[in-house]
């Protein structure tokens, strides 16, 4: 399992691996928003948490189809399926590798991008916390979507259609934590809901992903 994780991370860092792609996309989205809505600080401050969350979500979506499709194309998914690793372990490690290469950089870069959207000072901590708690759910749900569409030609678009509705609860509660944090309100309820979604997805979805992957490999 650790071998699979180190292989995926190594592949992501090497040329053509797509490491930083999500981060660059996140950067572009958040830089473009002030150009689009105008430089009014008050307006930007109001929409900053939501924009940062939508940017993170889209950046995450961008790299989802690489999670399993590359291994499917070169045949290593078949070989992994016949290896001693349980399929549930394989999809969990794949989701973890996706989070480390996409979710974690977003969490770390979010404060810097908050400046561009004039996020109030109180908001930074809760923005980072909400992303740190919420992005693992994005990776795990995304891996499920990738497992559903693996092997389909042009499956990336279908996967976006399948995955985006499943991202809605994470987006609502994640952005709510960041918004309440920015306005200095209590964040406990949405944060607990967000953590619940993340833990629930982490506990249940690997089994679903492994199940659909087995069916798709037939």
């Amino acid at each position, binding site marked *: 399992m*650790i*071998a*699979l994780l180190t*292989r995926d991370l*190594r*592949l992501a860092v*090497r*040329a*053509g*691996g797509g490491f930083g792609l999500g981060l660059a996309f996140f950067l572009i989205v958040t830089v473009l928003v002030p150009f689009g809505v105008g430089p009014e600080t008050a307006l930007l401050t109001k929409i900053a948490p939501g924009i940062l969350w939508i940017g993170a979500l889209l950046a995450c979506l961008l790299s989802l189809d690489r999670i399993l499709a590359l291994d499917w*194309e*070169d*045949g*290593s998914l*078949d*070989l*992994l*399926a*016949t*290896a*001693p*690793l349980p399929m549930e372990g394989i999809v969990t490690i794949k989701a973890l590798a996706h989070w480390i290469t996409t979710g974690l950089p977003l969490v770390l870069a979010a404060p810097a991008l908050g400046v561009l959207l004039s996020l109030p000072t109180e908001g930074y901590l809760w923005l980072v916390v909400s992303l740190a708690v919420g992005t693992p759910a994005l990776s795990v749900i995304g891996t499920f979507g990738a497992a559903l569409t693996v092997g389909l030609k042009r499956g990336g678009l279908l996967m976006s259609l399948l995955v985006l509705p499943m991202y809605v609860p994470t987006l609502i509660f994640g952005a709510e934590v960041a918004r309440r944090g920015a306005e200095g309100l209590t964040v406990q309820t949405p944060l607990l809901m967000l953590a619940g979604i993340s833990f629930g997805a982490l506990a249940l979805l690997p089994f679903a992903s492994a199940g659909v992957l087995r*069916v798709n*490999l*037939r």
Partner: protein
Amino acid sequence: MELTVSDLTVARGGVPVLSGVNFSLQDGRALVLRGPNGAGKTTLLRTIAGLQPPLTGDIQGAGERIAYAAHADGLKAMLTVTENLSFWAQVFGTNDISSAITAFDLDKLTDRLAGTLSAGQKRRLGLARLMVTGRPVWVLDEPTVSLDAASVALFADAVRGHLKAGGAALMATHIDLGIPEADVFDVTPYRAKPGVAAQDEAFL
């Protein structure tokens, strides 16, 4: 231990392709599957490897004993030859990759990225993967495609070494593998009658 297949029916895309297949493969023996294109050799091998369930019938002695090699080699273009092999060694819980590298004459290529290898070299690397799995039953689909005569001889030696060490090999091919002592199993008589489409119960 032996690999026993009894009264097996395998399907591709819900349509049975082979039915009533019976054979057994003793340790130390090699079996070559023959049959025309589309006969169902690959489907049979995928079923034995556990990638898809059989429609009917029973497979004994497979599961964790199988090392499967498909048409695709499962190599990562951006990893070197050594990194590719040691990844599979770690996955299968073994650690000796040097004998596999020597057996398939990859010594001079160890630091090359797999993406820069020729088709034949990639195939050799894909076959070397079998040796690092440490599994007793090799299930190989067209193992000698794109290999030159010298490499086919290397492959035959590797299979003989594996058989001598108590392993078994099941290979689908229509090219001569250079292993005359292998038994031959022709799948043609077992082709399923057309028109008996299987029902996929999940979509009923």
